[in-house]
């Protein structure tokens, strides 16, 4: 039987009794782990949905090609058939992941006493990691798709042929840049929501809308659409994707500063 009489016992839990503090690198890595602790949401669910889209599209395309053959035509003779779906789904899903990360995981991480700085850097690390992972996966599938002649059915879903991109490396870059863009734009918009609620987001999109209308008006009244077209052609898909880095970086920096003073509310 142990007895403590006075109320100041030997060992209080005080900051100084925590022998080791957690290093900044470890703290940021912990935030990334927190984002990934529920694998279902960031990995299994999008992969599953993507598989469903792919399998069902392929089935439909297979049925269609059988019908064409019966009618005496040859599906192979029609040139490659490009089916969208999987890639746009994935990129938009990652936008949702980013929004959830800021809107829900941020208030949760605050409950774990994580600083906004560590949270944002950890989230950025997660976004980068997920972008790399999915860019490798998607470009890998695109390569496999090309190597198997559109899965033996001349049907293409992962390749970026519609953007005129065939090679493996540019496919990878475009996926990576698109994913990064959607992650960081999603995070910045969600940060606006957390900090200024719905009106902040509405205000931002209103301002953005006017800006875009203004630019369209500018191009139209100055008869510069030709220049815009030339610029797009000159840069190519990869070039345009590279320019998106400016937007991604701007969103990344803005998201950081917006979240820095955001308060999670009930």
């Amino acid at each position, binding site marked *: 039987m142990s007895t*403590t009489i006075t*109320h*100041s*016992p030997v*060992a*209080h*839990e*005080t*900051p100084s*009794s*925590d022998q*080791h*503090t*957690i290093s*900044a690198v470890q*703290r940021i890595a*912990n935030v990334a*782990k*927190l984002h990934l*602790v*529920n694998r*279902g*949401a960031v990995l299994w669910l999008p992969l599953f949905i993507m598989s469903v889209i792919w399998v069902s599209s392929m089935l439909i395309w297979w049925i269609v090609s059988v019908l064409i053959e019966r009618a005496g035509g040859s599906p192979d003779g029609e040139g490659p058939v490009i089916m969208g779906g999987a890639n746009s789904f994935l990129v938009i899903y990652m936008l949702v992941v980013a929004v*959830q*990360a800021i809107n*829900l*995981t941020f*208030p*949760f991480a*605050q*409950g*774990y*006493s*994580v*600083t*906004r*700085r*560590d949270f944002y850097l950890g989230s950025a690390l997660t976004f980068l990691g997920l972008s790399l992972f999915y860019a490798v996966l998607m470009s890998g599938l695109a390569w496999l798709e090309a190597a198997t002649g559109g899965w033996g059915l001349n049907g293409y879903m992962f390749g970026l042929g519609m953007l005129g991109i065939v090679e493996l490396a540019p496919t990878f870059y475009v996926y990576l840049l698109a994913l990064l863009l959607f992650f960081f734009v999603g995070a910045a918009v969600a940060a606006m929501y957390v900090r200024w609620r719905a009106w902040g987001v509405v205000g931002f999109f209103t301002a953005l809308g006017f800006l875009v209308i203004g630019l369209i008006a500018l191009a139209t009244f100055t008869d510069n659409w030709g220049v815009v077209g030339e610029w797009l052609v000159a840069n190519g898909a990869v070039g345009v994707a590279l320019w998106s880095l400016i937007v991604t970086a701007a969103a990344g920096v803005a998201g950081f500063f917006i979240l*820095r*003073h955001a*308060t*999670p509310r*009930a």
Partner: protein
Amino acid sequence: MNAAIEVSNLSRHFGDIRAVDNVSFTVTEGGIYGLLGRNGAGKTTLMQLLTAQDFATSGTIKIFGESPVENASVLQHISFIKESQKYPDDFKVKHVLKSAPWFFRNWDADFANSLVSDFRLPTDRRIKKLSRGQLSAVGVIVGLASRAPLTFFDEPYLGLDAVARQLFYDRLLEDYSQHPRTVVLSTHLIDEVSNLLEHVIVIDDGRIIVDESAESLRGTAATVAGTKTAVDAFATGRRVLHRENVGGLASVTVDALSPTDRAAAAKAGLELSPVSLQQLIVRLTNTSEKEFEQSA
């Protein structure tokens, strides 16, 4: 004794609303504190400020001697799961148990697991699908098992049944004995926890109206009841915290009575009854400032 929390002239305004209004107080390291007040009195805002989840309009906060704002070296010693805590979408109880140790150095996984079975918490269930009581249990488990040097419990027993509430008090006292730390219990249900508290801070309308040891608050007030004339005569010259009239009868809550006062009251045919901490605080927070000053 070092200060765990030092607050001076702290205010937090939302437009015209003064959620926290020029508040100053100190919490010394080690001890179980009560942060009491009605719903909407400013308890949660105050705790959000102390844990750097919110930003002060003015004033200073020091936690273990440093400002907590964006200060990881201070924040990693704090545990604060809000009553209205948000969780990531589709998060399950097991995800909380898995991730919490990454953020709390003192996390005791065995203790957490034993609490999970004590509270009969289904670990594979989504947080969204938990009952209010189970949700409170998650907060209680993180608060206890984190063993953070500064732990806040925000309305910890909302939705918990009597058995689970007793379980919480028992586990808290048990673990606090083994691992003393600074605990702040925030609640508007005072009677149940009043015996656990060493020190009481009462916030009302954004201001601190009581900052005293629980023991000295005990017996600081008494209720005197009897005929209106006798009560009025007795109450003259005393601070009246509360008054009720029913027909020719009256009941007043007054400051602590000395034995002589008690004898006098008994002689005047008045009935005396003790005032619990909860009653005292209800009296204090119901009474407007003006009434206070008038009867003082």
